[in-house]
């Protein structure tokens, strides 16, 4: 580009930036003045106040109504993270399988997958979500729960599993064993993993893992771990919806691999599976990864539909907190910050993976 054009572009961009800054400053100033006129003050002090509401699903972090609003929001954030992480992984797995199967030489299988993908892709996610939630409500009540295995109950209250408690040291040692196994070449062979493995077994023997089976008491099961129907419906809807999109990405990326590459692999005597794994996928993956990142980000954002069926995700809890305390602008800001950082985090992680792919040039090595 010529220097003059360069300068013009710089001036235009600077002007646009300046204008945006002025507008943002004007909005912020007027908002704060207006709030002050109404005797309202912005502030995050309310995060320390007791929540006084109950949360249905809690994972990893216990919660009682006497805990702070900040902790309630954290519980919601962990719920969102759980759904997003499980959802992304499952959607990619299901999407890959569906995408590959759509390229199958069997026309019946191809048609079936195509119909399924088209139906899911063209159904609004909220409708899918409400449909799945309503279907799960048709399961039998707790008194007549299905028991496929001893201690496992399936009812309209969700899937109840036996709770297993393992000593803290056993978990730490088991994790160390896995790490030592992975790094055994650098740690000089099998000695370290073997020692750690024995230590894990000893620890497990000293504090044997306890299994608590849930009991039906009154309205519901007490004890055990419950996978609520809301979580199941949300996860299923997100995975179905997003994997349909991902399968199209996979299919497109595989089709984009030049025909010659496949022919060359065939000429070398590779099987179909070998061709796919060693030749087609490594090339296709490069085209796919940025789109997979986009799909994961959509899934995270879509998980906020949880509020429609009653799963306490971060949006649901922020809504409640904002409504009970009147700090709706602050909770909205937290919501924006949460989703922005989650999206950037996923984009950064998959971006790094993509850079790695481009650097090494091979995907599945």
């Amino acid at each position: 580009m010529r220097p003059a054009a360069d300068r013009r572009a710089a001036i235009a961009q600077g002007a646009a930036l300046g204008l945006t800054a002025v507008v943002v400053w004007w909005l912020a100033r007027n908002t704060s003045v207006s709030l002050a006129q109404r005797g309202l003050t912005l502030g995050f002090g309310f995060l320390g106040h007791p929540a006084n509401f109950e949360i249905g699903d809690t994972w990893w972090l216990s919660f009682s109504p006497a805990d702070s609003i900040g902790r309630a929001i954290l519980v919601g954030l962990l719920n969102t993270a759980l759904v997003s992480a499980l959802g992304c992984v499952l959607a990619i797995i299901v999407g890959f399988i569906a995408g590959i199967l759509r390229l199958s030489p069997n026309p019946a299988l191809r048609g079936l997958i195509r119909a399924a993908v088209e139906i899911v892709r063209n159904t609004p996610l909220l409708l899918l979500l409400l449909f799945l939630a309503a279907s799960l409500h048709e399961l039998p009540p707790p008194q007549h729960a299905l028991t496929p295995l001893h201690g496992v109950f399936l009812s309209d209250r969700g899937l109840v599993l036996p709770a297993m408690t393992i000593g803290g040291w056993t978990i730490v040692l088991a994790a160390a064993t896995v790490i030592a196994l992975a790094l055994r070449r650098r740690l000089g062979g099998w000695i370290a993993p073997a020692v750690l493995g024995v230590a894990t077994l000893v620890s497990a023997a000293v504090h044997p893992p306890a299994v608590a089976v849930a009991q039906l008491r009154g309205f519901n099961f007490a004890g055990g771990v419950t996978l609520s129907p809301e979580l199941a419906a949300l996860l299923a809807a997100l995975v179905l919806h997003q994997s349909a999109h991902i399968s199209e990405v996979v299919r497109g990326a595989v089709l984009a691999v030049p025909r010659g590459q496949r022919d060359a692999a065939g000429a070398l005597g590779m099987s179909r599976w070998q061709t796919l794994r060693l030749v087609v996928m490594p090339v296709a993956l490069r085209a796919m990864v940025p789109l997979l990142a986009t799909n994961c980000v959509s899934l995270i954002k879509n998980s906020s539909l949880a509020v429609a069926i009653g799963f306490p995700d971060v949006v649901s809890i922020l809504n409640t907190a904002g409504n009970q305390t009147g700090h709706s602008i602050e909770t909205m800001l937290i919501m924006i910050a949460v989703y922005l950082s989650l999206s950037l985090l996923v984009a950064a992680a998959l971006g790094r993976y993509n850079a790695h792919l481009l650097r090494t040039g091979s995907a599945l090595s």
Partner: protein
Amino acid sequence: MRRAARLGMWRRAERLAAAVGVAAALAACTESAPGASPNEPGGGGATPTLSAIRARGAVKCGITEGAGFATPDDAGRWRGFDVDFCRALGVALFDDPDKVQFIPYTQEQRFSGLQSGEVDVLVNGTTITSSRALRQHFHFGPIYFYDGQGFLVAKSSKVTKASMLDGATICVQQGTTTELNLTDFARRNKITFHPVVMEDLRAAVGALAGGRCDAISQDGAGLATTRTMLQHPADYVVLPDRISKEPIAAVMRTGDDAWLEIVNWVFHATVQAEEFGIDQKNAAQFAQTTDPSIRRFLGLEPGATDGLGLDPQWTLHVIEKVGNYKDIFDRNLGPATPLGIDRGLNKLWTDGGLLYSPPFR
């Protein structure tokens, strides 16, 4: 608190729009607020809301959809208990029950809508609480409905009182005081429950019908409405227990004194009219009355409500065009309606209830 039955398809977009709207309107307000004239007819100081209403030629009333309280009829005309009080405001100001613009809100959106100036008043079943008055800076009109939170359960569950709900899964609607009351009730009675917080009341109704929830908890009036949404209402029962006080009143922004007084006295007038025995049918006959207190009330003699700056006979118009409290209650909620709500505490003080109007003199 109670009822909001719209399907939540566009809820998310609406909420975002509401948030952006709040920010934008708050930003814009600093510019427009000083423009209001300092002395309204009948005003007590600066009243931007009242002058805006007069300039617009209509009252903007925030409502929340729910059978009996606010629903559009087949012709698309809003009807209901809350709607009638909004219409009474339209009559008081413009002698026309149709000079009202209705803006439906969910429980979550309502306060943002009022704060941002999108509506002049909320008549949507909001409970008066100290933190809403003192921390969120809202003004409340007189209590126009005395309610309390209760439970709706399936008859087959054999539950007959609230304390039997230990360990139950209870569906509640998001953005209400219900969740807090329920939590307090459980802590006070040392019972546990599992909440499922839904954004949409219809989802909660589906969950109760499907057996996912053992109970729905809402205000008593809301439960009567919710019960009519079930496919087999006769299979469900509202428990007699009330676990909270829910005094329902109209909500306004602070700093609009003349407007506040108009809302106050319009509500009082419906109660006072019932006490005098003046109703929609017989109102015209009272023009010949010789009872001085009734003559003052109806504006046949000056003095009672001059300070409001309204037509001297506004009370007569309100009763003729909308009705007294009993007319409004019976038409929308009473035993002759599908809701069949008993007046209970909402009887006149002379009949053993709590409704009591200050004297019009």
